[in-house]
């Protein structure tokens, strides 16, 4: 009589996972190296005046214009029912976003229906500063028109 155990094959086996680990490590390393770790966002703008002016022309209570000059000082001009001009000097070689925001916030309280602001910048102002001013404006007035054309 042959013992049963001699015919029984072992069901236990081992997968050689070392090459799998090698491949995974290389894949992870390449993916980490190739990854883009910044997030691109978009700021909506429209053009003030010209053929593509998509903002309907209507009698607004006030018109707000934010003008950035070469020294990064900002002139906030209000015309219409309220006439006012405020000059906000640059802070640490940047446009003073905090004060722009404060100024526009004050106007927003008085004229909540106004959502549009025109942004003008002098020719040599760097795009980064224009975007900074735009970001400050958008906190209170979401429709920004690029002006000065």
């Amino acid at each position: 009589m042959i013992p049963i155990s001699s015919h029984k094959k072992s069901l236990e086996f081992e997968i050689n996972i070392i090459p799998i680990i090698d491949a995974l490590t290389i894949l992870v390393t390449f993916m980490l190296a190739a990854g883009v770790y910044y997030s691109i966002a978009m700021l909506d703008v429209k053009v003030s005046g010209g053929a593509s002016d998509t903002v309907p022309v209507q009698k607004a209570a006030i018109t707000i214009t934010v003008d950035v000059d070469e020294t990064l000082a900002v002139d906030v001009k209000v015309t219409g029912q309220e006439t006012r001009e405020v000059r906000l000097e640059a802070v640490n070689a940047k446009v003073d976003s905090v004060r722009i925001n404060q100024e526009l916030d004050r106007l927003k309280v008085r004229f909540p229906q106004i959502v549009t602001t025109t942004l003008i910048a002098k020719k040599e102002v760097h795009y980064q500063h224009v975007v900074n001013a735009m970001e400050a404006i958008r906190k209170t007035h979401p429709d920004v028109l690029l002006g000065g054309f």
Partner: protein
Amino acid sequence: MNLRQRFAKKKRKRMPADLNLQITSLADVLMIVLIFLLKSISAGLTDSQSINVTKGIRLPGVLSGGAGKEGIKVEVSEDRVELAGQRAATLYSFRFGTGDLNGDLAASSTAKSLNSAFGAYRKMTPPDSPGASTIWIVADRRAPYATIQTVVASAAMQGYQDFKLAVVQGE
């Protein structure tokens, strides 16, 4: 052999001759990291995240911004303006030629070149296709406003209505 020596001998453990690393757990961790990386990369391939920004262009930074669905990419780098990957105008250190800026910009060769590029692209694109009237401005943060303004004005002249400025979020 005193008591201390006998105790130390008893406490010493024998290490097995063949030391097997527990690499199954390592494989598990690597697999999870790989899945997360694949997920994050595939998530980044939609909408405005899929913009391929040319090396050398430093986008302006903002704290927060919106998203963009579809649009025509206009890239403003140090030496050129590209419309949908095709050179539309030449720049010199982010600026148009000085001859152009001194005179009437609308009548300058740069403006004519940009206008014809935008006009030709507009004719080529079906008006009802998604993003046909949206321009994505992918410009370097060091570019002067005059350059951006000229590009935007040229596009607006050809009937493009919506503009989206590409920025880096979180800076």
